[in-house]
């Protein structure tokens, strides 16, 4: 019996799906073993199939449900809930699904602020009311998947490395629990480190760190010690893949920004990084916008509108959305 798979994308960009295709020949091998019953990017199964006459979503049952993207509107929520009902195992694929990802930066703004800018105060736009016919209403913020439905496997990464997508699929096909990286990006980085005290302050990334493109990365000085903010110490490893020489951004000689989310599932990349820098006595006054340390993990109440406290949120949840 072939394993059946349903795949959906919610508040996402298709990058995770591209990474799946980047498995290359392993992807073809997978197609021989897996049977996709729903996947909007590649196959024509519809919510209201076949002739658009059904009322409401109906998904086929599947052994495995793969969901990319967080939850931003009522339709995303309905799809996620229906996937949960119909799939034995739910895999949250990509950092949007596991931690909100880049789109959770919107959690620093209200929907009103978003709509006002988007539909009424943008330079080329003929100002109009916010669209409200047929389009699904937005929720109050972007949620990670596990804030709304039970998730069995978390596979972070923006996007997750094809090696690990492959590892998850293989493990689940064999009925095993997938084994994924648990260390930090720094633990997989070959750049040369000299130790504490080597750097006093951080600078903005406005010029390239010194390096020679034809020399191995082991001869490049650690980017943090070059005075560049690098989120490697507080970010989950994985982007180097199973056999990669180094983290992907480091290979470009560019500092890490934390796209795999925190090392520990519930870690806080902003607090962890500020602690790491402070304990090394590093001055970060030059760096604007420190909230952006959370740019990949802003769901779970991490990024909020100014003045919005977790306590407010709890009150809102008990009292309903009008309480604030």
């Amino acid at each position, binding site marked *: 019996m072939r394993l059946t798979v349903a795949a959906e994308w919610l508040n*996402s*960009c*298709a*990058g995770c799906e591209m990474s799946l*295709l*980047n498995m290359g*020949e392993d*992807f*073809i091998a997978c*197609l021989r073993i897996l049977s996709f019953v729903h996947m*909007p*990017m*590649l*196959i*024509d*199964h519809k*919510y*209201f199939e*076949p002739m*658009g006459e059904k*009322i*409401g979503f109906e998904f086929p049952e599947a052994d495995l449900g793969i969901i990319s993207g967080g939850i931003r509107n*009522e*339709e995303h*929520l*309905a799809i996620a809930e229906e996937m949960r009902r119909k799939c034995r195992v739910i895999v949250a694929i990509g950092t949007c699904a596991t931690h909100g990802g880049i*789109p959770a*930066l*919107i959690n*620093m*703004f209200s929907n009103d*602020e978003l709509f006002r*800018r*988007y539909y009424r105060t*943008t*330079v*080329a*736009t*003929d100002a*109009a*009311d916010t*669209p409200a016919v*047929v389009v*699904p209403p937005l929720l109050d913020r972007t949620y990670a998947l596990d804030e709304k439905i039970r998730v069995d496997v978390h596979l972070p990464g*923006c996007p997750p490395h094809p090696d690990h997508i492959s590892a998850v699929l293989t493990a689940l096909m064999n009925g095993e629990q997938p084994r994924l990286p648990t260390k930090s990006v720094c633990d997989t980085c070959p750049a040369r480190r000299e130790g504490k005290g080597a750097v006093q302050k951080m600078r903005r*990334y*406005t*010029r390239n760190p010194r390096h020679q*493109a034809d020399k191995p990365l082991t001869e490049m000085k650690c980017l943090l010690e070059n005075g560049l903010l690098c989120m490697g110490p507080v970010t989950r490893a994985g*982007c180097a893949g199973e056999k990669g020489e180094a983290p*992907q*951004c480091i*290979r*470009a*000689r*560019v500092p890490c*920004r934390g796209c795999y989310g925190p090392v520990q599932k519930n870690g806080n990349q902003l607090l962890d990084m500020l602690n790491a820098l402070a304990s090394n006595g590093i001055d970060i006054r030059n760096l*604007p*916008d420190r*909230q952006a340390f959370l740019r990949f993990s802003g769901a779970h109440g991490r990024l909020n509108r100014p003045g919005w406290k977790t306590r407010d949120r709890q009150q809102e949840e008990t009292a309903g959305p009008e309480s604030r």
Partner: protein
Amino acid sequence: MNGGRPDAEKEKPLPGNGSGRVITIQPVTRIEGHARIAIHLDEDGNVSDTRVHVMSMRGFEKFIEGRAAEEVPRIVSRICGICPWQHHVASNKAVDGCFGATVPQAGLKLRELMQTMAHINDKILHFFFLAAPDFVLGSNVDYSVRNIMGIVQHSPELAGKVVQMRHRGQMMIEKFSGKVIHPVAVVPGGFSRSMSEAERVEMLDGSREQLEFARYAMKLAKDRIFSKYDSDTLSLGEIRTGFLGMVGIDDGALALHDGVLRLMQADGSFHEFSGREYTDFIGEHVESWSYGKFPYAHAWGEGFSMDPDSPRGIYRCNCLARLNVADRINTPLAQAELEEFRSRFGRPVQSTMLYHWARLIELLYACERVVQLLEDTSITDPRVRDEVWPRAGRGVGCVEAPRGTLLHDYSTDENGCITRANIIVGTTHNLAPINMSVKQAARSLIRNGHVEESLLNRVEMAVRAYDP
């Protein structure tokens, strides 16, 4: 079954439409993104109206406000996981503009190289993975087979070759630039690393192989697909519009990375303007039923209308538009194909299904251009980035993404943080034309209440041609 959420309910008939049915196609499949097609039928079962709803919005323009501008090219790449390089490059150009940055020659060449290589993989993906099942397998075969898995079953050799070529192209980009999906290597002021001579030689070999594949793909498509286009196919989703695309400043030739924008009317006359002047020519209209906006040519002074019989202000983007506005292509194989294309179909070409043909001509161009760039040894100059100085300013970055003209318009404060942004992506330009093509297709296919799944797929083919 859904518990009666408003979003999951089917669309209601339009007011004044009697007891007519609404056919809902959702999700529109084998495209990138979340769209729903609603086909409204009147009491006799004929099409009274159609709408293509864009169902989600993330709000990038809003949430990049306050971010340090030099960080933004690594954020906005997430607008699209299929064409992240295009956003990455356009965003860097916008930040260069805000900061008044200069970019060394080798930096410019590496940017164009990576962006053009990304075009190659994108076109292979769209043509073979998303669109080809309708042509190779047939638009009327069962939906459970009509996909890339079906192609793997039906033509395993072709499928293997396509998957391998795309994969190799992706890995070439990744090997040099570190990260292929959501790239980081383009930076304000240039590029993050230089290219060694050994890397140049290796990439040149790989690029020549891609060029061979592009020739093979063109021949295959002509033999097996385009030669079988009948009049029904050529007229599927056909509408009459203007076109927008980038051309070289000096020669009016097809350009993907840098140039001026040419906005052509359906009669072939055109205006040219720089990306920075886009607001003088383009407005964005809002409809109550779609999160996506509808850009239109306000410079034509005729307003906005998506009526296929008398469109107003409507232009199209993406490959067919680029070929229509370009005077020529500066690479020999693609130029020969363009000449043949024009001799058959004229200029500008309006048939929507010819987007597929145009896409493969562009695939050839992109492959030839990459070889050209890599044959130039000056691309290995170690000076790839000039230092940038955050400051207040405005910058408009423009490139041609696979799906059309891409504009990133940013303003910064004195600390170099974003104060305002407007982004118009390729597919957004095409939202009005897509609506019109769907209406045209639905009207011609659905008559007297007779609907079947394969007809609805033909309606979707009118969307897919735009590769949204």
